[in-house]
């Protein structure tokens, strides 16, 4: 089996000179299927079993629970808006179908566009395709609202990969987190699309009561055909948004009316378990924490950054609580963590090993400041009630500076120690 596959691969190998792009793609898929037979030269004779592919794929593995829940929640929110199947498990097949119809195109577009650019640049530079986009491509759909137009997603990925990464020299050289950069692009280039309450629930013409649903061929013919054959409930193209539905996220509610406004709409259990509108992957806190724990225990993501960020967030919310000038500031500090995407940013965004601070001390500072600054942006920013995207991008820019000072301190310490040793040297 293995031998046959190897033979097959060697048969289809394209010519490197004549078809560089094809060969790059071939090489990427081949090294995906087989770890190459390279052996060590000049240096250590044995290497750790860990490589960048394995590192990256474990982040993707940690995201899987978020993918599953996020998919289902897209459908769940859709039917909540219509006032149908309001129980979490009611109409599960419809919710799953709706979720998949939204998520798969987002994922496919992000991957095809992103990897296409990676392959192109890799073949142009004549090196192997690097694995960075494996993670970025998995993160991007999860931090986008479900109803984002696909062309905006494609543009944002193009911007993030070309300007954010390839312009700096590829994976490992970028300064800003690629996934967040694509989100920032959407946020600043198409503010009307991503702000407001419309985009957080999918498949509706509008969120006002009485608005219709947007169903297409896949709903009306493909899935309804299957569901009818099984005798299950089908998508109802005449359904309208129920009375009294707003589709607002907890954060926008908190921004307008504080904790009371939030609890009028959602229970704390709903917010904790994630059955609320929001970006696709960020809503279910326990599943994100499982992923975070997995990353911290396996040592893939820095637990120092995570703890530092949690600490920074807590300190800032306490300060805001004590200040209490607006209703948003008065939201009890522990409830701040029930809303928004704090944990998702903490587990998967801040810990990016390329853009984070590289020194141990620096990681503490970096994490703390993200938590601290992010909470300020969330609560005090008048336009957009969430802060992690901006805080992390901001601290990405400052990470080299933090590292610089940590390293300068190390140099200073070394000089001091050299003087101390010289002072005690005999015969000098």
């Amino acid at each position, binding site marked *: 089996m293995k031998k046959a596959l190897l033979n097959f691969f060697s048969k289809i190998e394209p010519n490197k000179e004549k078809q560089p792009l094809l060969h790059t793609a071939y090489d990427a898929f081949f090294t995906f299927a087989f770890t190459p037979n*390279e052996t060590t030269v*000049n*240096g250590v004779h044995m290497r750790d*079993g*860990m*490589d960048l592919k394995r590192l990256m794929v474990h982040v993707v593995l940690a995201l899987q629970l978020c993918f599953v829940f996020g998919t289902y929640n897209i459908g769940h929110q859709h039917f909540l808006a219509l006032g149908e199947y309001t129980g979490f498990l009611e109409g599960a097949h419809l919710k799953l179908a709706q979720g998949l119809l939204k998520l798969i195109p987002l994922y496919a577009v992000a991957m095809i566009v992103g990897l296409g650019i990676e392959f192109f640049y890799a073949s142009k530079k004549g090196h192997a395709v690097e*694995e960075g986009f494996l993670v970025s491509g998995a993160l991007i759909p999860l931090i986008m609202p479900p109803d984002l137009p696909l062309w905006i997603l494609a543009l944002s990925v193009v911007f993030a990969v070309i300007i954010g990464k390839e312009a700096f020299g590829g994976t490992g050289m970028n300064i800003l987190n690629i996934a967040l950069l694509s989100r920032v692009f959407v946020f600043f280039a198409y503010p009307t699309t991503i702000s407001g309450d419309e985009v957080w629930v999918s498949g509706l013409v509008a969120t006002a009561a009485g608005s219709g649903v947007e169903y297409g061929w896949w709903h009306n013919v493909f899935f309804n055909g299957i569901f009818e054959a099984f005798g299950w409930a089908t998508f109802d193209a005449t359904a309208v948004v129920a009375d009294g539905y707003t589709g607002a996220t907890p954060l926008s509610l908190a921004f307008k009316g504080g904790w009371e406004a939030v609890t009028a709409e959602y229970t704390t259990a709903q917010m904790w378990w994630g059955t609320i509108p929001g970006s696709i992957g960020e809503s279910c806190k326990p599943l994100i924490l499982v992923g975070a724990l997995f990353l911290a225990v396996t040592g893939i993501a820095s637990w120092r950054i995570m703890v530092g960020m949690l600490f920074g967030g807590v300190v800032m919310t306490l300060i805001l609580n004590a200040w209490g000038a607006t209703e948003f500031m*008065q939201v009890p500090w522990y409830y701040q963590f029930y809303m928004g995407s704090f944990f998702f940013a903490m587990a998967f965004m801040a810990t990016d*090993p390329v853009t984070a601070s590289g020194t141990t001390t620096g990681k503490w500072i970096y994490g703390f400041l993200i938590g601290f600054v992010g909470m300020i942006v969330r609560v005090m920013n008048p336009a957009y009630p969430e802060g992690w995207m901006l805080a992390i991008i901001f601290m990405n820019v400052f990470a080299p500076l933090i590292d610089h000072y940590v390293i300068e301190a190390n140099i200073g310490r070394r000089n001091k120690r050299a003087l101390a040793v010289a002072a005690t040297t*005999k015969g000098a």
Partner: protein
Amino acid sequence: MKSAHRKSLLLIFGLFLADLVHAQSQAIQGQSWLIYLLLAVAILLFFVIVIQVSDNLLAIEAKRSGISEKAGAFSIFPSSKELLPSRKPNYATDERVIHSSKGFNILLEGNIENGQVNQAKVNTYAIKPQNFIGISPIPKVTVEVGDTVKAGDIIFFDKKNPEVKYAAPVSGEIIEINRGAKRSIAEVVILAEKKMSYRTYDTPDLATVSREDLVQFLLGSGVWPMLRQRPYNVIPDPLVVPRDVFISTFDSGPLSPDNGIVVGGREAAFQAGLDVLNKLTSGSVYLGLDARSQTDAPHTAFSGAQGVEKIFFSGKHPIGNVGVQIHNTRPVSGSEVVWTPDVQAVITLGALFSEKKFKADRIVAIVGSEIKIPQYLHTFQGARISELTDGNVASDNVRYISGDVLAGKQVASDSFLNFYDDQLTVIEEGDYYEMFGWLIPIAPRPSISGTFPNFLFPGLKFKGDTNTHGERRAFVKTGDYERVLPMDIYPQQLMKSILVNDIERMEGLGIHELVEEDIALCEFVCVSKQPLQQILREGLDRMREEG
């Protein structure tokens, strides 16, 4: 200065707290628990300070009246020593023990089961000029093919430093002078006699000889190249007096030999060597002793050595590396020089004085998963690999490594052991494809990563092979380097400063404290499969040219 700093910080913190409380009092009801919390913290802090101050006063008073010198005897708090059980092993309770939790032990198959030393049946030996860093590739060879030499006779010298002489490890006939690329001398091969004959030395009396005469004698004797100098790991400069001499008496590398066995029967020579070194340095001779085991004390030749400073080290590899030990005791900076001979070099040096013979015999560990019977062999410097492993290698597709799998060098089977190595490791070549090897590795492999189930089997020994397990990538900041380097050094930043040729930064980040073997474990764990040892050597070469 520092306490003023702290006081002002405390003041700012206090003001901040007051501000918080003030702001809180104006805030809405129902949030007042925050005030109570802050008040509680303030009260707690107050009491802690009061208790701490009175406790210190008590201790000061006790010390002044000379009742007890023992720390903590008068304190109501238990000292940190009482709270944490001492890591010091029984045999070193009163010694200085330095522990580091950083590092990683690579457990490999093919370790030696018993400490018996067998006699090697090796006939050919060679000295390879390339083993010496910084000497010219074409040294002046003073012998010709067909000449007979005695052990200790000079066979070549470097034209740049003609006073440093390189000696034959065994007596016999020069059978080959092999040349490598660009007519460089690759190896000078000697066919050993059955009965060893030694060059006679006019050994000076250690009690009366001056340092200059001693250095002149050692330069001509042939043992000088065995003493190595840091920074750069080069042959010592005869004009420079070393600040200190550091000797690590244990090797923590994978499958490394036990120096207790190496020194066995040669204790007197070891002590004699230490005495000579004491004459050569202006400072002290430091001995790094093994405190890794709770029960097994180091060999008495080490723990009972006279006239040296003894420091115990415990932890994981690379704690046995002399560079790590220097860093944690008296680190070197750019202008300073220390010598770092290994244990067998000290023994050879001592035998030159105690027996007046050039005894370059070495106890070599023959180890690795592809060795049928791992064992210690008694032989001489530069023994031929194929004769050392004759009939003892399990398969064909293997790699011979002079040294350990981390810092050793690959050697051909018909080549010779390198000058400074006392270990020969033979492992399997890893030139195979592995299906989805990065995702679901089938065979167990050593790794520090928690993504492998290795932590479930703490004592498991790995076969290990030379596969890179992935391709080379750009540096990422995983923090793995810092996990395995027990030094206050940032390896990744140092590597980058070498790559951009920033001399000042290299020096500032501590390049002088490192040689390849110290950074080898970082290279092992590197997920980007970067060649750190090679980069470091390039940086060291550049520093040497500059300085």
